[in-house]
């Protein structure tokens, strides 16, 4: 029998796979593939202020509220009342949870100066206390925060270590999922080497400050019997507790949509096969200062809301009222979309958070509001918090996340004309699906905006430079004039258009004049033809007349001769003489 078969035929194997207890902490269960190991202790270590207590408290509270698993929180540092106040800001009502017998808080007070050690002892008191607490509410989860405080309260290290080993073993036997927190030590995960005893799962919390901006990071150092993400994952503590951000899906196998959505600018859609962008794609709008990037973004948001879809606008430069006011001047009213609950603004200075934090907060907003479109305006400002490569890494993750949710994203980026290596738009352009560039065309003493589609994956897009016109009526793209003098925009284009119109009128005028002349010539000729005709007729008449006269003459002569003949016959001689003499 092969091993494969053996595996298949062993019904116990499924049961042998490590069970996991979901923490309920956003993102953590994804990283750990389901949560912390059930019925085993997990060590959470980190420096002071890295969020250990909050982390473990959230584990207890979420367990009680979401998974119906009551929990015991044994605090060695903070008093129960202090804890209650501290986590009330997260919306956790510990008093109520305690009353409902879902949570049990126990503060362990231990003070070396009050205790005299007089010989052999053990920690049975702690065991009994914990056991009593667990049994009183039927707890499935236990937190010991921070058990290392025992080391400062009691001096006999040998006893303590032996007892701790016994404690963790005892917790396993109790079948509770436990979190033990520990302060980070020099060169070791914890000061007292707790990792020696808790070897199933170790999570390290870190709090790093770089460029005066702090980032909280979480890393799973080990997780026996389970696959887990090994990266450092940024996490955020806010009014809703902890959210951890799974960095990236490792595979590129996102679903794609063939659905097209309008950019909100009909003439721009026309450049994109007349249909607009793909849903779920990422669009970059880059350009120099004042080229109307925000306007394009606002139009896109407007179009999204008109389709009755939700949109989130992350502004890193302007405040929402400022954007709303400015956009009113080009004919779109964003306020009404906000009132309808379709549009949300999230404005923050880039320096408020580290990049990771921005990403986490975007995640949170997206998961909560479920928009179909989001706008980041502008991503260039994020450079102030991180380097280009960091921004790029963040955007990769963001795009990745949004694609899985089929959310269309539009970034705007400021291009600086000269500094090449500082350009975010170049950096991220390979990530995006469509790239629109707006640039200044300076000509003839004025500045005009030209726009073109640098790339647009999966569609036949226009290769034309269009003039991008912002007016009271909104945005429009106008075909630029391409003439012998090059590309003409703005007033030069209009002048050219006028010139062309004049030319047209002149030409029509000239044509009509020629027509008249032809007509006149024709008439002249016709007149000439008529007169010739008359002449011909008169000539003919003349000829006819002489012909008739000749006839008459002939007739008369004939008659005369006959008469003469008659006369001669009558008077022969005279007649003959007369005739001979003539």
């Amino acid at each position, binding site marked *: 029998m092969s091993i494969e078969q053996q595996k298949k035929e062993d019904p116990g194997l499924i049961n042998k796979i490590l069970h996991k207890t979901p923490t309920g902490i956003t993102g953590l269960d994804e990283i750990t593939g389901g949560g912390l190991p059930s019925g085993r202790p997990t060590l959470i270590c980190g420096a002071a202020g890295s969020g250990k207590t909050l982390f473990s408290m959230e584990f207890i509270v979420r367990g009680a509220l979401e998974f119906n698993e009551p929990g015991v929180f044994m605090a060695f540092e903070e008093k129960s009342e202090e804890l209650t106040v501290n986590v009330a800001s997260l919306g956790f009502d510990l008093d109520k949870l305690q009353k409902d017998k879902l949570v049990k808080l*126990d503060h*362990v*007070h*231990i003070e070396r100066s*009050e*205790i*005299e*050690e*007089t*010989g*052999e*002892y*053990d*920690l*049975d*008191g*702690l065991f*009994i*206390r914990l*056991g*009593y*607490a667990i*049994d*009183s509410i039927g707890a499935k989860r236990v937190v010991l925060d921070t058990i290392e405080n*025992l080391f400062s*309260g*009691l001096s006999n290290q040998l006893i303590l270590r032996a007892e701790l080993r016994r404690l963790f073993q005892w917790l396993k036997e109790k079948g509770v999922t436990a979190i033990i927190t520990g302060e980070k030590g020099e060169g070791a995960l914890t000061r007292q080497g707790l990792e020696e005893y808790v070897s199933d799962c170790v999570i390290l919390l870190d709090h790093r400050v770089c460029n005066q901006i702090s980032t909280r990071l979480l890393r799973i150092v080990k997780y026996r019997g389970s696959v887990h993400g090994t990266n450092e994952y940024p996490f955020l503590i806010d009014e809703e507790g902890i959210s951890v951000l799974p960095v990236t899906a490792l595979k590129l196998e996102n679903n794609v949509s063939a659905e097209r959505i309008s950019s909100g600018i009909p003439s721009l859609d026309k450049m994109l096969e007349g249909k607009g962008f793909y849903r779920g794609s990422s669009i970059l709008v880059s350009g120099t200062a004042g080229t109307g990037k925000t306007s394009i973004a606002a139009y896109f948001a407007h179009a999204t809301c008109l389709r009755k879809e939700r949109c989130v606008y992350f502004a890193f430069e302007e405040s929402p009222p400022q954007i709303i006011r400015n956009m009113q001047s080009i004919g779109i009213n964003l306020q009404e979309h906000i009132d309808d609950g379709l549009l949300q603004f999230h404005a923050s200075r880039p320096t408020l958070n580290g990049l990771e934090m921005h990403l986490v907060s975007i995640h949170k907003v997206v998961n909560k509001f479920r928009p179909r479109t989001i706008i980041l305006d502008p991503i260039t400002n994020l450079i102030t918090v991180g380097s280009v490569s960091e921004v790029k890494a963040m955007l990769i993750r963001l795009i990745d996340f949004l694609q899985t949710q089929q959310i269309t994203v539009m970034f705007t980026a400021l291009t600086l004309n000269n500094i090449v290596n500082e350009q975010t738009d170049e950096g991220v352009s390979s990530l995006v699906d469509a790239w629109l560039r707006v640039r200044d065309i300076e000509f003839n003493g004025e500045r005009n905006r030209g726009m073109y589609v640098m790339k647009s994956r999966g569609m036949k897009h226009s290769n034309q430079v269009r003039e991008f016109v912002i007016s009271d009526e909104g945005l429009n793209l106008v075909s630029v004039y391409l003439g012998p003098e090059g590309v003409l925009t703005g007033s030069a284009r209009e002048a050219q258009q006028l010139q062309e119109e004049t030319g047209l009128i002149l030409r029509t005028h000239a044509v009509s004049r020629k027509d008249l002349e032809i007509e006149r010539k024709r008439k002249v000729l016709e007149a000439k033809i008529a007169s010739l005709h008359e002449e011909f007729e008169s000539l003919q008449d003349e000829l006819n007349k002489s012909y008739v006269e000749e006839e008459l003459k002939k007739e008369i002569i004939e008659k005369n001769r006959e008469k003469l003949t008659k006369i001669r016959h009558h008077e022969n001689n005279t007649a003959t003489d007369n005739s001979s003499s003539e």
Partner: protein
Amino acid sequence: MHNDEHFHESNENGKNETFQYVLSLFVTGASPNSVRAIINLKQLCETHIKGKYSLEIIDVYQQGLTAEEEQIIALPLLIKRLPLPERRLIGDMSDTAKVLRGLGITY
């Protein structure tokens, strides 16, 4: 096992409030440490403060809630309630000098 009555019997001298020393010893059943602590403490008290003390022996196993109320971690634990200040001694009470110091007994 050990309870209040048991220890009051062993204490022949007068009423509770007149005792100079009021002691509570917390133990866990009949564990070696507990047994040693009881024997050591009794012997010490009989030797140094005979008739001036009341001793209450409490089995924490029997009273789970006590552990939390009295902030008990390490056992055996002796709490000297009177005379003030309150003092806490842990261990099997084998270090007589320390116990005496902890109880504030000069010898």
